[in-house]
């Protein structure tokens, strides 16, 4: 990665978000590079989900600009927006599977809407995506209400992958997964990044994932963002960052990762 030229695919400048009198972001700047896994961390309620929604165009910022591959997101026509949205995959914090459709139909829905391939191929691709995220094939025929919490996460990831996006936004993908599945999830993200050159923005409270898969980490703190690699952030003097990156859980996570690397 390091020898390749760094290409910025998403650029946030001076983002201000405000709900009523409560200001969430106060001039956030952030560059997301192609092919990286960027971790987004911060305390609960620090505005991680809101920031991702801002990038996705679901939330119009009070001030500031969002550029995706040089295009100014809030100023795009609906048609241009649609073109861009096809190259995004989103896993929402609460899954957001369509409750009236089976899992397999959920995965096929973006294909039905945006591509002209035959329905047989759609079905096959949906199956392969189910397997890719580690769901049994018979889960495809189930409705979201019949799934466990962890299965919902996987099914939503499969849907996010439906159109083979360039960039994947994951809002707490491993929350609610058992440690083995969470590790498998990390493996999958690494695999996709490596083979498909996927860019991934991942909101997570899972320190193991953070250590294992993230190239850089963005910390949302005091309504602003501090970005760096794990090593850089460890040296940062901000008390919250100190607590976060030197807490006992973080040490444990790093130890595991080191042991695995050996």
């Amino acid at each position, binding site marked *: 990665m390091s020898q390749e030229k760094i290409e910025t695919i998403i650029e946030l400048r001076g983002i201000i978000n405000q709900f009523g009198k409560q200001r969430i972001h106060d001039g956030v700047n952030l560059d997301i590079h192609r092919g990286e896994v960027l971790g987004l961390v911060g305390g609960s309620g620090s505005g991680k989900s809101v920031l991702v929604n801002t990038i996705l165009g679901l939330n119009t910022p009070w001030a500031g600009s969002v550029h995706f591959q040089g295009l100014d997101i809030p100023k795009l026509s609906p048609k241009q927006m649609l073109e861009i949205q*096809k190259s995004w995959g989103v896993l929402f914090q609460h899954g957001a599977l*369509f*409750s*009236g459709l089976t899992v397999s139909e959920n995965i096929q829905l973006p*294909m039905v809407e945006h*591509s*002209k*391939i*035959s329905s047989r*191929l759609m079905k*096959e*691709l949906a*199956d*392969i*995506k189910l*397997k*890719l995220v580690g769901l*049994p*094939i*018979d889960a495809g*025929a189930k*409705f*979201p*209400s*019949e799934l466990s919490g962890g299965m919902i996460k996987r099914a939503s990831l499969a849907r996010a*992958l439906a*159109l*083979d996006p360039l960039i994947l936004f994951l809002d707490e993908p491993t929350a609610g997964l058992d440690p083995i599945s969470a590790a498998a999830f990390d493996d999958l993200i690494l*695999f996709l990044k*490596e*083979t*498909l050159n996927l860019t991934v923005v991942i909101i997570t409270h899972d320190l193991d994932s953070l250590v294992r898969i993230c190239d850089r980490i963005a910390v949302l703190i005091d309504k602003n963002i501090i970005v760096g690699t794990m090593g850089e952030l460890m040296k940062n003097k901000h008390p919250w960052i100190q607590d976060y990156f030197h807490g006992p859980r973080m040490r444990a996570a790093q130890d595991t990762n080191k042991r695995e690397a050996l």
Partner: protein
Amino acid sequence: MAKTSKFIELQPDNNLLNVGIMGDWIMENASVLESLLTDLDIEIEQYDSIRMHCNGLENIDTSGAWMLYQKFSQYEERGLRASFEGFKDVHFKFIKTIQTLDKQPCPECMRDRSFYGAMERLGGLTVKGVSHLGEALGFYGRIAETFFRSIRSPSHMRISSIIRHVQEAGINALPIVAMMAFLIAIVLAYQGATQLQKFGAEIFTINLTAISVLREMGVLLTAILVAGRSGSSFAAEIGVMKLNDEVDALKTLGIDPFEVLVLPRIIALVIALPLMAFLANMFGLAGGALMSITVLDIPLNRYFDQILGAVSMNDFLVGMIKAPIFAFIIASVGTFRGMQVTGSAESVGRLTTIAVVQSIFLVILADAFFSILFAKMGI
């Protein structure tokens, strides 16, 4: 017969078909690729081996990898000698993964469509029908039980909740109810007047309007309006709470959902609907008055004399007695259907519709029953 395109290049070599795979094999091009591969199926018949050259392949994703892999295994199955070459490492790794995933066992879940299958489904429907009946009985039983429990210990009566629903289902709907009754009375009076004029009996228009408003129209139309307005919102509110597991959450907190969700709505509507019906009656009479002054040229004092002569207390009571019963029908059907919601957002929509249609139907049925009953009793 060498064919070329942006993605595929065919170069026959005796019995061997060389296929150059090029460009971006990604989702965006998937439909083109699919039809190219279908064409290849026909082409391949004349050869006994195929070699895919992937040096020119630039990008690949799940859809491209799957199509390539699947063609490859299809040809192998047909007894062709198939081979790949020139893959980039990452692409090869990806195809490999697809292959391992595909080899995973896949349980076949077939539906039995035979005669026995049909019988089984018929039996299933019967059981479902019977259990629905049981469910409804159970629901009304629970309402009764919760009601008597609340009466014995009033702390179980959710007064603030009842007040909120009286406000939402009743007070907020008063303007539309008044308006509707006023207009209906005008319609009735107008139609009555044109017919009765032929006999020179215009004055009886007043009797007609007053009696039909007080006995039937006021309460019936109010009930239908409330069924559409509150029956649907009861079903949808409770339905969404069920979807979000809020109803289960109440149970685990030791709070009876019937006590906090169902009973307050029923009691509130039983209180509100009679008030609304009363208002509807008054505005209906006002509508009649307006018509008699403007169309029939009968002054207000003669209008009231006529009404007092024509209408007895019984007519008023016959109308009003129906109001709480209609209210009970609407509220219980709405909450019952709401509690039946499971699974999907679609089921909220479906059961809300059922709640409205069914409560209107039952209200009209009950009204017909009352008409016959009162006629037999001679009231």
